[in-house]
């Protein structure tokens, strides 16, 4: 719907004479801020935390990482130290998260502690159905059935080819959420995925379904809203996460992931 309002607004602003030109602006550089992205999941790496810092406006890679933080996960009176694995990553293998349990993350950097928590969502089960492929365009219509248990409120869909998490094959820019407040619902979903001419017979398409917690849903919803800010007159903003210090960017959430594979024939 936001696109519609932007569209109407654009009509209003361009009914008459209007033009767009590049302009040189002397933009202020913000002070560096912490970016913490943490997840608890049913993956092998059950606790994954990445700590970086913000960079320049035109920076796209090589963001400064923080490798000297102390990262802890607390739940049920238990404290797990999450060790650094380099490049800003802090990972823990072996935790089996439980449905409805609250997990608390504490990150200590330069004497300051940042806290956030998440409640682990329920299981889901994804199964692939027969895909329909159009090799001319080319795109594939993936159909999957997903079995959601009680408490499965938000699903996040991504896809990849041949099991390789190539970002080009992720529907990441526009993650697909499904709101579902049902109890043990089986849902059939369809996605159309364009493969830019790289699709061929024998390729394996992997669908990743994540049942995500409300924190993750809210954070990525805001992140997507923020990326729509193409009309300068709307109030731009940074997506807010759930850390107790609002100056920290990022979030700490949790998800249960199920994968479904299908082979192009």
């Amino acid at each position: 719907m936001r696109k519609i309002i932007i569209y109407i607004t654009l009509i209003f602003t361009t009914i008459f004479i209007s033009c767009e030109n590049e302009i040189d602006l002397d933009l202020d550089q913000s002070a560096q801020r912490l970016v913490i992205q943490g997840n608890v999941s049913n993956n092998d790496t059950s606790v994954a935390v990445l700590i970086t810092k913000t960079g320049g406006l035109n920076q796209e890679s090589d963001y400064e990482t923080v490798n000297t933080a102390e990262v802890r996960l607390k739940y049920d009176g238990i404290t797990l130290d999450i060790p650094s694995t380099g490049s800003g990553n802090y990972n823990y293998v072996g935790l089996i998260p439980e449905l409805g349990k609250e997990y608390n993350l504490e990150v200590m950097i330069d004497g300051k502690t940042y806290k956030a928590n998440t409640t682990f969502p329920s299981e889901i089960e994804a199964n692939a159905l027969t895909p329909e492929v159009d090799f001319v365009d080319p795109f594939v219509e993936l159909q999957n059935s997903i079995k959601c248990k009680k408490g499965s409120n938000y699903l996040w869909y991504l896809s990849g080819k041949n099991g390789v998490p190539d970002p080009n094959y992720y529907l990441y820019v526009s993650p697909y959420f499904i709101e579902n407040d049902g109890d043990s619902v089986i849902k059939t979903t369809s996605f159309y995925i364009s493969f830019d001419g790289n699709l061929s017979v024998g390729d394996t398409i992997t669908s990743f379904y994540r049942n995500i917690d409300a924190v993750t849903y809210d954070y990525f919803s805001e992140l997507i809203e923020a990326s729509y800010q193409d009309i300068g007159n709307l109030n731009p903003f940074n997506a807010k996460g759930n850390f107790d210090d609002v100056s920290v960017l990022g979030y700490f959430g949790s998800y249960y992931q199920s994968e479904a594979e299908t082979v192009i024939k």
Partner: protein
Amino acid sequence: MKHFLVLSMVLWAQALYCQNFTISGFLSDSLSGEKVLYGAIGIGELNTGTSTNEYGYYSISVPKGSYHILVNLPGFEVKRQLVKVDQNVKLNIDLKQQAESLDVVEIKTNSKETDQNLKKAEAGVIELDVQELNKVPVIMGEKDVIKTLSLMPGVSLAGEGSTGLYVRGGGIDQNLLLLDEAPVYNPSHVLGFLSVFNSDALKDMKVYKAGAPARYGGRSSSVIDIRMKEGNNKSFHGKGGIGLIASRLSLEGPIKKDKGSFIISGRRSYLDLFTRLSPDPLIRQTRLYFYDLNFKANYTINQRNKLFVSGYLGNDAFGFKDEYDPGFTTKQKILWGNKTSTIRWNHLFSNKLFSNTTLIFSDFKFGASFEDKYDDFVSELDYSNGIRNYSLKQDFTYYLNNNNKLRFGTEINNQIFSPGVYKYVENNVVEQSNTEQKQGLEASVYLLNEQKINDRLNLNYGLRVSSMNLYGPSNHYDFDDNGSIIDSTRYRKGVFFKSFFGLEPRFNSSYRLNKVSSIKASYARMMQYLHQVSHISSGTPLDYWLPVSNFLKPGISDQVSLGYHRNFAKNKYEFSVETYYKEMQNVVDYKDGAFTFAADSIEGELTIGRGRAYGAEVFLKKRTGKFTGWISYSLMRSERKFDDINKGQWYLARQSRTHDISAVEIYEITKKHRISLSWVYNTGDAVTFPSGSYQIDGITYRLYSERNASRMPAYHRLDVSFDYQVKKTEKFESSWNFSVYNVYNQMNAYAINFRNDYYNPGEIKAYKLTLLPIIPSVTYNFKF
């Protein structure tokens, strides 16, 4: 307060004891019969005087004797009239116009005694002369009161191509815009390039930036009171203009000579008439036009009763239909418009008690529909919003004595809000908002006194008591601190379920330091019981109004203002400097990422906070001579504070333009030629720009600065206008107006967008959207 009241009562009692007879009547232009508003009338022998009210009526108390009535207003010949008073005297005064140059036949209805700006207990007031308006450079040949008003200190346009106004750091929804007492909710034509006010139909405009008298209420920042002409009650006349984008025609004349008159004034743009001739089917099927119609009629029933009926009707339309290929068609249509109607009854209960009863209707509607068809695929979107009100006002003016003019009255205003409603249908699947209409009854009473303490000190003080009463059918919601609904109750039709009350004290004073200078001070609390939700900062017809609720509390402003006013060279020059400090409560802003298209539970998207604005304004005007004009400078800072924005710290409001300069120069080259120019400069709006980047899941996102920590580029523009009188006879005259908007083609930024560079995707570049480059225009004007 108690002592003050006692003192006032004693003064009034003394005055009552002294009074004898009254001289009362109307002040009129002898040529047209139009009433002269706010005109000063003096009695030399008694060193006393008064001024006409907004209907041209005056009343003055004198002891028995003979007196010279003196009226000396610019633009009119001096009027001296001997009056023998041994009983109450009815004296209607006709003023004869002075001969002038290009505007000799312009009706002089807004003339002020040359030093009235020093006398009146009114701080922060702008009185815009319609004649001045006619001389200021115009855009595309269309004179515009709102654009001209923005050239005055403390007032600025919300953006290029906008009729939204920022007044002393307030928001665009905090201005009460009245056309013959009817509120106009969205004064824009063609997005805002022109206002809905056709200057040919206007008589007077008065703007209160501070200290609005207690008879005004409903908005917290300013009052813009525009009055329409009454029409010539002596003879039939017309005037009009043929411009590049629109033409206009006004006709006026007597209904019955000296008893009643009418004026009807219309405008229509005609771009769509040309697009129909295009061979391109897309252009041919494009509709883009606006029209408006003003009308007013009045009739004097007898010495004590007079009726007025006036109204406005205007609409804008934009739409097109396109068929990309035989199977794919798209249709789009956008319509919006205002309607207002005012019926007034002036009644004189006595020579001292003037009454005005007013019935008001005002309505604003916006609608948009979009339809796409592709083979079997059909999608339709309909969106609408609006507001309507019905008001009944009763105002009294009691001329207690020459030193005290009491005004009191009441108003009941039924407001019906239709916030954004949308319906989206895609292949018969319907998605729509659950927005429902909301209703509120705003009621108020006021009492004020315009008091002359002595020759130096004038006061204007009063109190307004206002309330807003919400009624069903409606859901009444309870909200948590975040604006999320936690409970709701359904109320039946006509059941009042929530009320808000407020006391609004007002105080104005003027102290005459000497013959040429005075100081003025004011304090005013103003409240508003509705808020506007805007989609972009400069305002569009998409914006909708909402009443107060459990979450959206009444907006309150408290403003103190202090000014020094001085005239030079026998009132040829007028100078003023004013400072002010304004605090605002319950200011509304969006939460980060707010979605405001429809209003199912809009409160969840908004946040409530505080605001403050302070600044200084300098104004220098040359009033007479071949070379006239003014320069105004405003220094201002406007800030906001919300718990959930900028970590609860104060930040700049978008309209916090530190420097705002306007210069208007008008030069009468000969009696037939006139050149005028206006130049504006203001600091760019406070906005939020990207100031860095960060990554989430390997994807790069822009990092934005704190709210409004950056600035748009400064705005400046020069407009020039040249008038040439072609023909002038007793019965007909005509002239050409050549104007150039944005003479040096300054590409001012309307908005700035940031995008990755096409050739170097890693680099983010800024692009400015410019709306109006240099625009020459020519208009042929005529009068008969």
